């Protein structure tokens, strides 16, 4: 079970993600520099958090033009699991793998706090072990985390069951309290909160079981595929 973690110039959660996938969940995890090709035998790929290119122009937009993105798109087209966390989510929307955009927080502040997510879609590779409505205590850490999509496309998201996570309360004026979405097929998921910062009890003062289930869902999905 081979999982890739893509490293962009300015990624800073790549090691956390690598640690969680490799040390906590014992997956065969490898880093891939943003100029690398992704091997054909990769089972899933994660775009980690950070500040690719220092958020110049707009968070994620420059990284969205990285050479590796064409291989990420190929994996997405094949139906393989793709996860973008925080800056990874921003890169997924800017590369048009996911709809919408992440705007500057209304407060103009970098927000770093624990939040509560509500699972709205348990048909994705990262949520298959959850019950609908299940809650996940999880931290956010972002300056551009306010999800926006126009009404017409929001209606499409709702109709196609593409809203994966909602915040339990309106923390940042995201449209419809959206914290995470997926593509129409469900295999590409982007989320602003950081599951890799919530799976170990040493750094999670609340409950790490639900965040673990995000990765356990991935393992179950990849396992079932083989």
């Amino acid at each position, binding site marked *: 079970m081979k999982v890739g973690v893509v490293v962009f110039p300015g990624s800073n959660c790549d090691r956390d993600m690598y640690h969680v996938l490799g040390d906590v969940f014992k997956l065969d995890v490898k880093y891939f520099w943003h100029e690398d090709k992704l091997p054909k035998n990769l089972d899933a790929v994660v775009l980690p958090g950070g500040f690719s290119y220092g958020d110049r122009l707009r968070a994620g937009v420059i990284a969205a033009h990285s050479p590796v993105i064409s291989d990420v798109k190929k994996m997405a087209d094949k139906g393989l699991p793709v996860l973008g966390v925080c800056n990874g989510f921003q890169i997924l929307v800017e590369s048009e793998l996911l709809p919408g*955009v992440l705007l500057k927080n209304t407060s103009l502040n970098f927000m770093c706090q624990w939040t509560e997510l509500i699972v709205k879609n348990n048909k994705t590779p990262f949520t298959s072990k959850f019950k609908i409505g299940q809650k996940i205590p999880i931290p956010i850490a972002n300056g551009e985390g306010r999800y*926006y999509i126009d009404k017409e*496309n929001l209606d499409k998201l709702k109709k196609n069951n593409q809203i994966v996570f909602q915040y339990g309360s309106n923390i940042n004026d995201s449209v419809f309290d959206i914290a995470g979405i997926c593509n129409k097929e469900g295999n590409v998921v982007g989320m602003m909160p950081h599951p890799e910062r919530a799976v170990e009890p040493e750094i999670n003062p609340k409950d790490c079981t639900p965040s673990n289930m995000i990765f356990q869902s991935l393992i179950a999905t990849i396992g079932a595929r083989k």
Partner: protein
Amino acid sequence: MSLFEVQVMIENKAGMNDPEGDTILNDLVLKGHHGAVKKIRSAKMLKFQINSTTKQAAESAVKKICDDLRIYNPMVSKVTFSAKSI
């Protein structure tokens, strides 16, 4: 071929909120008693220097670059171009 400067102004579409403009208005300008000011919208400007034959050609070349590379996000931003020879 001559050198032109094409100014690209990117701002939020009307109806999109603009927390930066609001903060400058409410927490700076209006606190300075400039009550005549009713609204401030923030924007980002990029200045491209580009070799081209005419102003119009320079503008449309930069527009194509901005569209192709998603220099602005079409869902939330409106963009205006203006070229001058330099």
